[in-house]
């Protein structure tokens, strides 16, 4: 029997990590999967940040123009009766809107995914009171002006492309896979067919039956690291963090040394997918780093340290205690480029 063609629409270069977290290998058991990525069209300025640990699978196709992609889809449409698409594109520019409209025109079933894995302020309004909210907003404005400006631009774009354009053209997916009860309300009025789903981390937790023990004894704490050093999502905002390497990591290193001393354990690092693969991290006291092993590390650890990693969900699932951290001496100074 001819299997359905499933196209994954992806905005960036696709990494091995993305192939794993979006379960593309597993999807291939049911579908003929093709990954279409639009890095060159949609975000050419981010190219330098998405070049590590890329997947080299032969079902990945890069497109240099929307016209090229449309011709490709029309040819596929002639040969395949059943085509569906999973969409990871953001609705924040004309090209991505053009792609989504073409899918509609070709009557290709589209599934969108909404599973951020972390809470957003707007669905937990009671956490900060009115005064705190204003305090943080003003502080953010003065310390992170460029970030606030760039973020506002994105929010305006999203509003225009999603809410405003939706009044005139139908950009809605056929299905949306949503993870988390709190996010239901965001889509209830949209009349999109909502599918009960999971975050990528929780899906991995369900998928992996035997979680390997990768450190023999369980006498360790795990630091769920953010992207870095010399890299941060702030780069997306055309900003950079100054003094990050020295001040930030030396403060963390001291903190880990104290944690190890007081609790008589060692700290190991679960590296961020955007970080460089390194066995020993010179910027964190030569502590051992593990790439793509957060689930395994957290399962057997004593506690977890994080700023705000989505992988904290593993700690919740395995009922581990947390240390969240902040820092005051180092003001996160986000300089204008």
């Amino acid at each position: 029997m001819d299997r359905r063609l499933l196209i994954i629409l992806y905005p960036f270069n696709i990494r091995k990590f993305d192939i794993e977290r979006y379960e593309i290998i597993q999807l291939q058991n049911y579908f003929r999967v093709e990954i279409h990525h639009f890095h060159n069209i949609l975000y050419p300025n981010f190219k330098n940040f998405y070049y590590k640990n890329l997947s080299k699978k032969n079902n990945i196709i890069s497109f240099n123009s929307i016209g090229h992609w449309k011709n490709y889809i029309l040819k596929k449409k002639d040969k395949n009766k059943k085509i569906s698409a999973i969409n990871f594109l953001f609705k924040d520019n004309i090209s991505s809107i053009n792609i989504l409209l073409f899918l509609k025109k070709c009557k290709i079933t589209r599934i969108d995914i909404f599973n951020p894995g972390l809470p957003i302020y707007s669905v937990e309004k009671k956490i900060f009171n009115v005064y705190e909210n204003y305090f943080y907003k003003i502080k953010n404005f003065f310390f992170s002006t460029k970030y606030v400006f760039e973020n506002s631009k994105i929010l305006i774009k999203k509003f225009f492309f999603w809410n405003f354009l939706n009044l005139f053209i139908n950009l809605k997916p056929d299905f949306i896979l949503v993870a988390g009860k709190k996010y239901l309300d965001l889509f209830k009025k949209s009349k999109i067919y909502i599918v009960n789903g999971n975050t990528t981390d929780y899906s991995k937790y369900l998928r992996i039956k035997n979680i390997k023990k990768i450190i023999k004894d369980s006498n360790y704490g795990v630091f769920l690291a953010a992207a870095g050093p010399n890299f941060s999502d702030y780069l997306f905002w055309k900003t950079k963090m100054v003094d990050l390497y020295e001040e930030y990591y030396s403060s963390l290193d001291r903190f880990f040394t104290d944690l190890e001393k007081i609790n008589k354990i060692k700290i190991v690092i679960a590296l961020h997918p955007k970080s460089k693969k390194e066995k020993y991290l010179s910027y964190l006291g030569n502590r051992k780093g593990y790439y793509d092993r957060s689930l395994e590390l957290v399962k057997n650890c004593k506690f977890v340290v994080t700023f705000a990693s989505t992988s904290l969900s593993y700690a919740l699932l395995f009922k581990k205690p947390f240390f969240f951290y902040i820092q005051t001496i180092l003001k996160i100074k986000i300089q204008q480029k």
Partner: protein
Amino acid sequence: MKYSIFLQRLIGGKLININDYSLDQIDINQNKISIKNYNRYIKNYIKFGKNSDPNYKIINSLL
């Protein structure tokens, strides 16, 4: 900084200022977990209902 405070209030655990803390604050024996908060967070942000299938199975059953 605001976001880690937000998460700590939502989930529990200890919030440490890594530039100014006392050693007893970082003793793991003093760091108790709140199962109620944990389960609420899992329900609200990680999974949906009693679904026990990974996403690829959900997508397969959909198409």
